[in-house]
């Protein structure tokens, strides 16, 4: 009798990879890329509105005047010029960042990975919002963190519950390695942490000597309302690591982001980055820096923000019209996403299967935003990618499925 091993490398895999799993959701999500499906799933920036001539011009300039440097390795933490441009971007959010405190990364995703890689031992606690950015979860799990998620509401993370959790850990003689937050236009929830709560969070970090990781890819995409100060700018005690990216303000394809952190942490992140990929793309940096030289970078952000705003409006109007009264959703003042809450007997992974099969429409099931797979009655809808007409059409189709399932459930429950 033989024990069959399909994967002949099974004995070689590191323990930490056992968290990596294939899932129904991943396979369903692969289907959402089909052209006949209206996908409100992926949070893809609208790269069609980035002027092709602009890209051609800056790329041309980089190629003709300095191709050798553009094609060469660069410093691990990025060029000084890139860091200065990053500081300019952060200044737009009233945040002063010293270029010496900046590392240029390969996308914001690498920031999350580096922080986790440098700080987390197996079993260490990370506190995150509930829901949290689904893309952070594999990183946290692959370093075997114990992720505790704290609920959020319309004003962002519940600071009362966060405080309680931190105090509970303190009583047990421990503390989280870091608290991972997306304070602006949260992915997936769409909400912002209110000013009061930001102040509380910074105070909590000071009191207990905690590290906050502020992940802010969407902060520049505000449609209305007042800009809120970044946690990084409110903190005066070097407790905040700031992670961001050019993905939504220039392009995700260039794979450039950054981290801002106090010097000792930065040194470790630098070592981690060097080990990971030696340096951020020199070519991408040269292109971005040339873009900053020749053009007003805010122009594209302003254009695309108006576009996202009208798409958000289309989605909100469609939700009002087509979704049942028993559902609710967030009203984001910026960003890409609306977060929907359905009656708790509905499972949005199942609903997604139905939506793809019967109505050719897709969304992101909420359970991907929890480490333990809860959140089954939520869905994330993205308004960044698709036109207003298709948004309305897509919401109508999803609404239909939800209503049908609710009717069915009533029949399944009967009168009790």
């Amino acid at each position, binding site marked *: *009798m*033989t024990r069959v091993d399909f994967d002949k490398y099974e004995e070689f895999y590191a323990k930490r990879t056992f968290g990596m799993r294939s899932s129904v959701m991943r396979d369903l999500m692969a289907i959402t890329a089909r052209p006949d499906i209206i996908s409100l799933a992926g949070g893809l920036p609208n790269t069609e509105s980035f002027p092709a001539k602009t890209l051609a011009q800056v790329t041309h300039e980089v190629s003709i005047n300095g191709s050798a440097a553009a094609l060469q390795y660069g410093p691990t933490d990025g060029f000084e010029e890139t860091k200065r441009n990053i500081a300019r971007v952060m200044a737009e959010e009233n945040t002063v960042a010293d270029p010496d405190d900046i590392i240029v990364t390969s996308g914001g995703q690498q920031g999350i990975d580096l922080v986790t890689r440098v700080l987390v031992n197996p079993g260490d606690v990370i506190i995150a919002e509930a829901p949290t950015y689904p893309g952070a979860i594999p990183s946290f799990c692959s370093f075997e963190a114990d992720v505790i998620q704290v609920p959020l509401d319309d004003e962002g993370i519940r600071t009362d519950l966060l405080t309680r959790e931190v105090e509970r850990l303190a009583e047990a003689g421990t503390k989280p390695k870091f608290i991972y937050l997306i304070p602006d236009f949260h992915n997936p929830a769409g909400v912002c942490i209110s000013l009061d709560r930001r102040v509380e969070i910074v105070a909590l970090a000071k009191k207990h000597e905690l590290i906050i990781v502020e992940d802010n890819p969407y902060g520049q995409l505000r449609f209305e309302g007042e800009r809120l100060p970044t946690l990084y700018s409110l903190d005066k005690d070097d407790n905040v690591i700031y992670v961001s990216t050019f993905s939504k303000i220039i392009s995700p394809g260039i794979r450039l982001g950054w981290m801002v952190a106090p010097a000792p942490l930065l040194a470790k992140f630098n070592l981690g980055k060097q080990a990971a990929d030696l340096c951020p793309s020199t070519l991408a940096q040269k292109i971005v820096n040339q873009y900053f030289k020749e053009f007003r970078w805010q122009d594209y952000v302003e254009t695309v923000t108006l576009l996202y705003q009208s798409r958000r409006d289309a989605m909100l109007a469609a939700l009002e019209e087509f979704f049942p009264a028993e559902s609710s959703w967030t009203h984001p003042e910026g960003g890409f996403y609306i977060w929907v809450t359905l009656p708790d007997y509905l499972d949005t992974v199942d609903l997604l299967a139905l939506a793809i099969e019967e109505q050719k429409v897709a969304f992101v099931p909420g359970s991907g935003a929890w480490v333990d797979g809860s959140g089954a009655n939520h869905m994330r809808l993205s308004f960044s990618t698709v036109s207003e007409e298709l948004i309305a059409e897509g919401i109508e189709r999803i609404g239909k499925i939800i209503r049908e*399932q609710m009717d069915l459930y009533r029949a399944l429950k009967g009168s009790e």
Partner: protein
Amino acid sequence: MSKKTIAVLKGGRSLERNISLKSGARVEKALREQGYSVEGIDVDESLVKQLKDLKPDAAFIAMHGRSGEDGTVQELLDILNIPYTGSDVLPSIRCMDKVLSKHSFIADGIPTPPFYAFNRDAFQELGAVDTMPIIGKELGFPIVVKPAAQGSALGIRFAHTVSEMPAALISAFSFDNKVLLEKYVKGTELAVSILGKEPRALPIVEVRPKTDYFDFESRYTMGKADYLVPAEIPEAVASEAAELSLRVFSSLGCSGFGRVDVMMDESGGLQVLEINTIPGFTETSLLPMAAQAVGIGFNDLVEEILLCALEA
């Protein structure tokens, strides 16, 4: 003699599309290595046109689920007079629908767990909800709630009490308009693969999922289930399982190949859960595993299945 041209049909629109693409790719590679001229087709609305242009000597169907396993594509191939692998239209229809196949099992005296089946109308128009307490008493808990026609364990839920039934049902109804409520059999899961023009049972694979049951995740993620072949069961039970499976295969009119899923309960009794007429050909699939155990490599397996069609 010139090479035979084989069309490998894969992909399509079912929820098992990705699994089908993997199966299809492996089958294509195997057939090319065996010397056939192979055209892989990710099926869509141009399928019939493509087949008319290509005029293949046979079609190897590597589609799973809706349209591929339920007689739909088989019917089209019959019309086009293209020989194809696996079972014909009627057995495909009967095997895809667990309700139909279980009724056939019962009619033929083949042991299968007791069950009840409903479509949405039964609940929405006839008040079937009021039979739930009766069903709970008759079948006992836990009850397995599953869509009648969906592969890869999608939409399967357990209800441990009457109050858990609505949630389990609504999940299953997300995958099909007809669902089964079946008595749960605790025991050992056995996969009996059948192969050949003269059908024979291949060594039985025992599946030991590392999760609670053999769900989607454990089927398609390496390392999530342990497989033992031949199964660690008494010789007599293994023979009985093989014989039972061959009976199922022939009484439902199947041909070429297939896989019968059987539960061995804690007292060694056998119950047939279902029969699959196009089991998977991926790296974690059970049919190729069973074939390997008797020295039939993947390429030879694929070719034997093809020859059943070509020589029919």
